[in-house]
């Protein structure tokens, strides 16, 4: 049952990635074009119907096209933000775990400190004060997200670095560099993979939240969060404008979470069969 849901998640993720890549080919309309027949005579958005499959937004633009292009934004922010967080977190956790001693301790106390930050508040403040761009949003998110990975990698590195084969390699005169890259890092990769997958879910949610508050990715560039931000005043008369992008966000985050959870079970045999 876990494998089945992981497979479904993988399929959904692939679908989103493909539609992000081939957005210009599959999107029915230009996402920023305001159609004359895109609004009712009273100037309200049009409900999902034949020509506009998912309806139109408050400016008479096609919602489906905006969603398809919005997938690009979510994925780009997700990949950059999470990539930076994983690289920074893994490096710091690995170094702290390998060096131990004062420096390692100092690094870990710093992560304690980061854990005490009201992270979302910090992210909102930073991206509001910098005039937000895709890159800034991604960097702010990674600033918040690296800590968790660093702490997990730290604990794992400590346990791996004390194993006999690592001591033996050191005894044979291997340099620190070689011990880390050849003998410790490969054992950390499964963990890194799991946290990369789970991290994308967190990142997608954070980007959507920042964009929803209007401090993330700015319109007219569509992102799933800012589609909701733009249309939220219509949520009573045109609920699809809020709930369709909302569903997209939840499904994408859910897929990454389910996939990450299944990967953790596969890669860590001690966890298998426990639940």
């Amino acid at each position, binding site marked *: 049952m876990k494998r089945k849901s992981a497979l479904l998640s993988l399929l959904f993720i692939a679908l989103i990635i493909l539609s992000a890549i081939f957005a210009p080919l599959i999107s029915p309309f230009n996402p920023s074009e305001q159609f004359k027949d895109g609004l009712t005579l009273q100037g309200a958005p049009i409900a999902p119907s034949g020509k506009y499959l998912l309806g139109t937004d408050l400016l008479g633009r096609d919602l489906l096209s905006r969603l398809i292009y919005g997938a690009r934004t979510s994925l780009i922010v997700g990949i950059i933000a999470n990539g930076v967080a994983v690289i920074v977190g893994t490096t710091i956790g690995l170094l702290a775990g390998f060096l131990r001693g004062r420096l390692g301790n100092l690094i870990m106390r710093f992560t304690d400190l980061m854990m005490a930050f009201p992270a979302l508040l910090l992210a909102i*403040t930073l991206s509001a004060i910098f005039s937000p761009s895709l890159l800034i949003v991604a960097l702010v998110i990674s600033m918040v997200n690296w800590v968790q990975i660093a702490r997990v990698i730290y604990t794992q590195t400590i346990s791996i670095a004390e194993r006999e084969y690592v001591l033996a390699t050191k005894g044979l005169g291997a340099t620190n560099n070689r011990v880390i890259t050849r003998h410790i890092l490969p054992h950390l990769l499964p963990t890194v993979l799991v946290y990369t997958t789970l991290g994308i879910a967190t990142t997608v949610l954070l980007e959507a939240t920042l964009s929803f508050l209007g401090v993330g990715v700015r319109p007219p560039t569509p992102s799933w969060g800012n589609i909701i931000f733009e249309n939220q005043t219509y949520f009573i008369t045109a609920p699809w404008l809020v709930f369709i992008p909302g569903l997209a966000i939840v499904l994408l985050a859910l897929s990454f979470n389910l996939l990450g959870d299944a990967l953790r079970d596969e890669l860590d045999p001690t966890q298998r069969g426990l639940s």
Partner: protein
Amino acid sequence: MARYILNRLTQTFFILIGVSFITFMLLYILPADPAVQIAGRSATPDTVESIRRELGLDKPLFVQYFNYMINLLQGDLGRSYLQKSEVGTLILSRLGPTISLMFFAILAELILGLFAGVVAAIYRGKKLDKGLMIGSFVTVSAPQFIVSILVLYVFAVKLGWFPIGGYGKPIHYVLPALTLGILGSGWYSRVMRSSMLDVLRQDYIRTARAKGASQKRVIIRHALKNAILPIVAMIGLDIGIFMGGIVVVESVFGWPGIGQLAWQAIQRVDIPIIMGVTLVSAVFIVLGNLFADLVSPFIDPRIRLKK
């Protein structure tokens, strides 16, 4: 034990100093110039300069931080740039709504989460269990603002049972607490389920069953008390999670707490307020974590004996 508590308290103190330092530096290095904000667009450079001097913004950053900390130790969080009142007073006046919402939100999370967790454990492997566990994944994957809007849409707009916003009457608590309850319940239900399954495997449960206790009695009288122990520590961590997400919920529901205060301050770049709310939230987070670390030995004699 006393020594351990003392150590953790000192650590907590230094963490708070660190948080204040980093937040201060981040906020003051940023490109927004508060003096220009206060003076307004038509102000002359001279006016801006005098405002800057008045606020002490012309001094080196470290001196500014030092002054801020000296004041902070005397309980003074500074003055809001735009609202002309003490940040401490502003935060105090907003703290009540936030804390009462926190109480009801965590209560809702516990009710929903524990119930779902216990039911899932009893029906382990059955359809109900699978459904509840997928549900718990969905709640972890749903952003706060979407669930907030969904709850508002269903219960306030469509059914009309509750008001859309507002504060003051008990009825206003229902929707925000329900939203946070749904969101947080997934986390609790997963832990509760696995904790319950652990307990149900124990010998004393088998003994109770062998003595003829009914399923209901075994679960409620024997298993629940032990299965709930890990949950108590989670409440501490949950205080931190609540504080982290407060800006979104309070701004969607128009809740007059410190999250809304912070959100208004962020939009106007009113740095002393942002700084104050960040610090107050950090205090809650750190104390919550401290509670989580310290509470287990108190409620679970088995952990105490091992030390």
